[in-house]
């Protein structure tokens, strides 16, 4: 059985950590989130790896990769550097953003800190702009409870339009529900309707016009709205991707769903 109601079930019954064995992967999952929200702890809990989890912002500067199997599906999971936003140009933010857009993961888990939800949602909203395959994990529920903070996951899920799962990555609480949601979103069985922030009418008008142009230039490109916003903003990385044809390649890659990765990157994250 696998349902959200079984909070007490040991996760181990269906979760099989695969460490750095990432051969024969079915789906790719990315872990995004603010610094110090426990992404690496969740990564370790799922993969059985021991990526070092320091209690300071910015511990993971490279991507770390690992694998796990859940319910007979094999996942590769990529631990992205913690960032506060995806808008500026520091290197760790670029690593995170590039992977969400160009790496085309089947789902992104946005790990948030239950004790600092408002600030964490800024990033979650930015991820929702890029992709609709998102699951929000509200981590550190134990710390929040200690501070007398309660988080209404249902209200969050309703507002954000994606599954929201409260977890305690350190103890494994809620991992079962999280993985079920990830399975649903990454397979496409669960359809999401992500919250997208709209701007002023003149801004929206410009975005729509540019969207049409982008879709004509690179038919089938994922999320032309986000690309249009980035181009309006003068984002050099996205401009380059358009100029060099990287965006067009994204389309063909999405069609083939050809996912390549190197276990070397996992090694880089090991120190």
């Amino acid at each position: 059985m696998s349902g959200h109601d079984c909070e007490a079930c040991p996760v181990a019954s269906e979760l099989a950590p695969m460490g750095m064995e990432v051969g024969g992967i079915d789906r790719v999952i990315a872990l995004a989130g603010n610094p110090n929200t426990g992404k690496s702890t969740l990564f370790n809990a799922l993969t059985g790896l021991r990526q070092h989890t320091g209690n300071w912002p910015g511990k993971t500067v490279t991507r770390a990769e690992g694998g796990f199997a859940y319910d007979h599906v094999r996942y590769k999971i990529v631990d992205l550097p913690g960032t506060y936003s995806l808008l500026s140009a520091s290197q760790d933010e670029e690593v995170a953003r590039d992977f969400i857009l160009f790496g085309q993961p089947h789902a992104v888990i946005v790990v948030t800190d239950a004790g600092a939800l408002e600030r964490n949602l800024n990033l979650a909203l930015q991820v929702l702009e890029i992709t609709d395959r998102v699951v929000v994990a509200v981590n550190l529920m134990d710390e929040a409870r200690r501070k007398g903070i309660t988080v209404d996951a249902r209200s969050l899920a309703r507002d954000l339009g994606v599954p929201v799962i409260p977890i305690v990555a350190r103890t494994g609480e809620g991992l079962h529900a999280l993985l079920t949601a990830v399975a649903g979103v990454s397979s496409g069985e669960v359809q999401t309707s992500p919250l997208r922030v709209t701007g002023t009418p003149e801004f929206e008008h410009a975005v729509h016009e540019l969207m049409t142009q982008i879709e004509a230039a690179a038919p089938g490109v994922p999320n032309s709205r986000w690309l249009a916003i980035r181009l309006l903003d003068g984002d050099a990385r996205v401009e380059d991707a358009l100029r060099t044809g990287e965006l067009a390649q994204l389309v063909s890659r999405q069609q083939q769903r050809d996912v390549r990765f190197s276990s070397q990157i996992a090694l880089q994250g090991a120190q």
Partner: protein
Amino acid sequence: MTTSPPVAPPTPDQVLARARALRRQLSGGFREEAVKSLYAEAERVAKRAVSHDGNTRALDLDQRVDHLVTSPWFGLPIMLVLLAVVFWLTIAGANVPSAMLAQALFWFEDQAAGAFDAVGVPWWITGFLWHGVYRGLAWVVSVMLPPMAIFFPLFTIFEDLGYLPRVAFNLDFLFRRAGAHGKQALTMAMGFGCNAAGVIATRIIDSPRERLVAILTNNFVPCNGRFPTLIMLGTIFVGASFAPAFASIAAAAAVVGVVVLGIIFTLLMSWLLSRTILRGEASAFTLELPPYRRPNIGRIFYTSLIDRTLFVLWRAMWTAAPAGAAIWLLANIYWGDMSLAAITAAWLDPLGRAIGLDGIILLAYVIAIPANEIVVPTLVMAYMGAGMMTEMEGLDDLRRLLVDQQGWTLLTAVNLMLFSLLHNPCATTIVTIYKETLSAKWATVGALLPLGTAFLVCFLTATVARAFGWGV
């Protein structure tokens, strides 16, 4: 929408031109507007989902602790005391296991070499393998393993507890005044573990200028490969001049002094770089102070012993074996009536003397470029290789070798500590600087800046000391 799809698909340049045109039409503040509405949305969603009750005791404790450890008066002293305690535990705890390991490993060397002799293996094979390669390994293991096995878990506890961001908070104003980024305090703290790791950690710094400053100055804090050297020197020169009861405290104080000096040099060099080749102002940033978390003991042991201690030891052993072989060859191949080691050392001697060291020490540093960990072992083997000493068990013998036979003075020890603190980064760090900056120029600067500083500082110390007639 009124736009009709164009007949032919637009080229990328056309799309970009259109984006530029649309951007011009938009009112100037649209970027800020977009970010503002995003934040407003996050606030709205969070407000609906989050509620507080009155229980804020846990929060209060965190805040009270923070109040103390980041206070303008107590923050820095508390930091120094914690640092001193860590070093004291390391020095006091590592002494005995180090001596025992050395005894056991060198006993094995004698037995093995004896067995080789007994079955008639040529002397140069025995010498090369056992007195060269094996001795290098044995030295690295006995000098490095015990301090690392104590230092790393302690360091990791502070890291997991959440103390490092508080250190960054305390040091922020100093770094800002030096024209550097406040987060450099974090990358500097990583440098205490390993300078290459510290250089990689600078990726958390957004501004390229400040990141370069952090990269180029990371080497001025001693990495754990250099700590055994510092600890050894502190123990046998500073510690030994005190009563046994205070020896390890004095040694720890000496190491803390060196670390503080390293931080001062980091700030000084950052300041110099920010005023000269990397001119610019410090940028503002927000530093989050994460909640204190109870460290997970199992993970601490795993991280510090497997990921860090064994990782570093393994790397040191890989470089120590060839270094041991090289030093044995240099000491046993003769040109005329002098060994190659003696010839090279004699050639380097004037330079070494000028900066308060000697030729053998410089030779050891040249051989130890691949990894700083092996400086002391190489040094001892170079001294011993000249046939000056055959038995070597523990730090007392080492003191006898260096002081009584090689004429080391307090000046030699002080300058060696300074040189060890300031000299060029190991090969791994230089390669890492190159990989991170993708510039041969900055990698060269990253190597030569510390090296030049080391020579200059040691030369000045030696000159001043001699002028006053101290420790000549």
